[in-house]
């Protein structure tokens, strides 16, 4: 029996970062094959290549024994490959049926045959045991139901191979069970499934085989039932033991920020933060490890005032902040370097001068009684450029000419310059080259040594382990692990990140 899918030596480079290196992956007919790895491991890139959204630099793809290239999702669909993205591609105001048939409508002459569409959909629904109500509008449906529609969409187009990208990220536990049942029945009929995930429990529960990716390379492909969580976690995060380079002479500074029982909703109305308790002290870097989408972003946003909390208390320097908004937080000494630098951190079309005072344009000495003090601003900006070695043609030039590293330096420099009590940084070195990465990390250490409390959120586990005094792991909106020992237990952290509950939590040094 031919393999459904063979990917051989797929390599892909983005700018100067190697996203995938000689990745080999096979999918057997009728199997559920999990693709496991952290953020940045390359899972989504690999699948995007398969689905025709990205072109690989080298390698081969063969589907059912025949070599082929995917130039677009249409090619992939033609080959029988369908993908369910993390972000659903459904038109909310159209009905279920309309969404499913869009682009491939049953017609007779100019007429769209709605009845025929319904019949075909019911056929698919029965064949694969996927319940669906064709005439409801999509916005009325639950997330689980919407996902089912995405699956029916690709089955309607006769997909043989289904790729699901982190499908359980948005589902409730009963919905997850339902999804697994569906997948099993699909493979029983002979369909094949690729299941991208970072959750170990799911890998063990549903997959036949699992391929682990780490930093663009395949770490191993194992038969799931012959492995266990510990082994997988090991493969996922690597074997090396990392000594934290920061000294743990806990300067044991005062508590700068205290978060108690904090809860908040995410963008889709679902709970993103669940009763978080966290203290942040001066002179300490607290690293938040965890795969993207487990609440870290929301935590940062609430602290920065960009997202309202549902319940709980936030204290900054012993003052309770009842109503958070950006201006208030800024005035309390909270600085924030967002993960989405270009969209949020700067106004790309405007100059360095303008962007450097984004947060403090309203206060002395950068403005006096409503009037900007341009010479002061210029000196300040030039100071930043010099001190932080920001390469730019001139400070009047617009920010979008800066390279990624220099842009990040500018933003970080700006935030640091306000001498913040609490500095929140998200993905500080994402997409940066080695030199810039080192610079940024040193800057963070410097700030810590000067007494700031730093909340470091990063999907790069090495980074978190290297820089932090204390590490917490967030999973599905809660803190599931905390450690401040000299040597961080990488395996335990990896397990926690993947949702495997450790039997003990280390004591936090008071």
């Amino acid at each position, binding site marked *: 029996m031919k393999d459904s899918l063979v990917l051989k030596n797929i390599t892909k480079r983005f700018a100067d970062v190697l996203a995938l290196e000689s990745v080999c992956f096979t999918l057997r007919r009728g199997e559920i094959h999990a693709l496991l790895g952290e953020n940045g491991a390359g899972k989504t890139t690999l699948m995007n290549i398969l689905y025709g959204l990205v072109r690989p630099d080298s390698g081969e793809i063969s589907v059912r024994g025949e070599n082929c290239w995917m130039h677009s*999702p*249409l090619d992939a*669909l033609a080959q029988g490959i369908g993908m369910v993205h993390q972000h659903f*591609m*459904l*038109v*909310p*105001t*159209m009905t279920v049926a*309309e*969404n499913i*048939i*869009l*682009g*491939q*409508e049953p*017609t007779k002459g*100019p*007429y*769209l045959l709605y009845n025929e569409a319904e019949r075909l959909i019911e056929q698919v629904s029965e064949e694969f045991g996927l319940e669906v109500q064709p005439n409801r509008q999509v916005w009325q449906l639950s997330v689980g139901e919407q996902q089912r529609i995405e699956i029916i*969409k690709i089955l309607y187009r006769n997909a043989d191979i289904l790729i699901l990208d982190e499908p359980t990220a948005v589902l409730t536990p009963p919905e997850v069970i339902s999804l697994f049942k569906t997948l099993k029945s699909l493979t029983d009929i002979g369909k094949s499934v690729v299941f991208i995930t970072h959750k170990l429990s799911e890998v063990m529960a549903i997959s036949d085989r699992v391929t682990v990716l780490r930093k663009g390379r395949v770490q191993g492909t194992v038969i799931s039932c012959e492995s266990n969580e510990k082994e997988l976690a090991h493969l996922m995060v690597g074997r090396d033991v990392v000594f934290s380079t920061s000294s743990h002479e806990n300067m044991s500074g005062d508590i700068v920020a205290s978060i108690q029982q904090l809860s908040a909703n995410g963008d889709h109305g679902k709970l993103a933060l669940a009763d978080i308790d966290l203290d942040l002290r001066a002179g300490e870097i607290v690293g938040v490890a965890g795969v993207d989408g487990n609440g870290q972003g929301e935590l940062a946003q609430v602290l920065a005032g960009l997202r309202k909390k549902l319940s709980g208390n936030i204290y900054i320097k012993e003052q309770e902040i009842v109503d958070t908004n950006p201006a208030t937080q800024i005035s309390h000494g909270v600085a924030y370097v967002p993960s989405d630098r270009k969209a949020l951190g700067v106004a790309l079309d405007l100059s360095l001068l303008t962007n450097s005072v984004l947060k403090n344009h309203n206060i002395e000495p950068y403005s006096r009684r409503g009037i900007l003090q341009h010479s002061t601003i210029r000196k300040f900006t030039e100071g930043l450029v010099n001190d932080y070695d920001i390469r730019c043609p001139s400070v009047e030039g617009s920010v979008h000419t800066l390279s990624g590293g220099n842009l990040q330096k500018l933003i970080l420099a700006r935030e640091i310059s306000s001498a913040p009590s609490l500095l929140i940084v998200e993905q500080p070195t994402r997409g940066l080259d080695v030199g810039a990465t080192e610079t940024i990390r040193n800057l963070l250490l410097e700030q810590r040594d000067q007494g700031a409390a730093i909340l470091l959120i990063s999907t790069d586990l090495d980074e978190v382990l290297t820089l932090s005094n204390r590490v917490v792991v967030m999973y599905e909106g809660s803190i599931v692990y905390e450690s401040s020992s000299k040597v961080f237990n990488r395996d335990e952290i990896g397990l926690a990140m993947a949702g495997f509950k450790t039997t003990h939590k280390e004591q936090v040094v008071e």
Partner: protein
Amino acid sequence: MNWTDILTASFIIQILASGVRLSTPLILAALGEIFAERSGVMNLGIEGIMLLGSFIGFSVAILTGNLWAGVGASILLGALMGLLFAFMSVTLNANQIIIGLSLLIFCTGAAVYFYRLQFSFSLLPPSIDIFETLSIPLLSQIPILGPIFFDHTIFTYMMFLAIPISTFVLYRTPFGLRIKAVGEYPQAADTVGVNVAFIRYSCVIIGGILAALGGAYFSLAEIGIYADTLIGGRGFIALALVVFGRWNPVWALAGGLVFGIVDALQTRLQFLLSEVPSNFLIMMPYVLTILILLIGRNKQAPSAINIPFIRE
């Protein structure tokens, strides 16, 4: 004229018939804009396209002595203007509001200029014989409904036909379904292989054609002359009609008829309500439009309207 004259059946019928007649250009333009906006493109320039369509129709009709040639010319022009707008907003991703206004200025200028060029030598304002009213046999004999609906020029009948055709296309064909998807969530349409640009181009061109026809109505079927003030803001009212009609042709028809009737009443009411300054009566359509917008806000505009679609 006094109130007792109003409440006679013949007067009411007369008004309603005029209302249907006068609503023709509004509804045609609004229909076209419904297509464009449903696909996610808002064309503020239809006032200009109407004026230019009115001029081209008039000009060609006089040159060839054939009214239908005029109609054909204005259809062509509308398509051309639609193509231009689509190119700038869909391919070049320029801001739709700005392009709409630019087109407004351009088309108005073109109409005014070329009219002067063509007719600067005539002493009297040139005019043509407009389309005759065609009474549809049998149907126009029906008491009351007959004279109101079936005693009009070909333009009005075109408008009547356009409503069910548009409704059919928008709600019963794959093309219509794709328009809806493209106007709400173009990324989703793109991932299933729908050609977003093609859909938008098509809809904007349809919009241009119908707007030009709406303008041509005035010079070819209503007054038989061209004047710079011919359209008088009706292009903008058509925009409002689209919102009021919740992007649905049948509701736009209803709204258009209301406006047509108000328009018809307006001149007659001025005689009656001479104590009320005429200006307030003239204001009526515009105030009505705002009120309509205030009540008609439950249905959302197509979500992707005014947002250029750029594939990631």
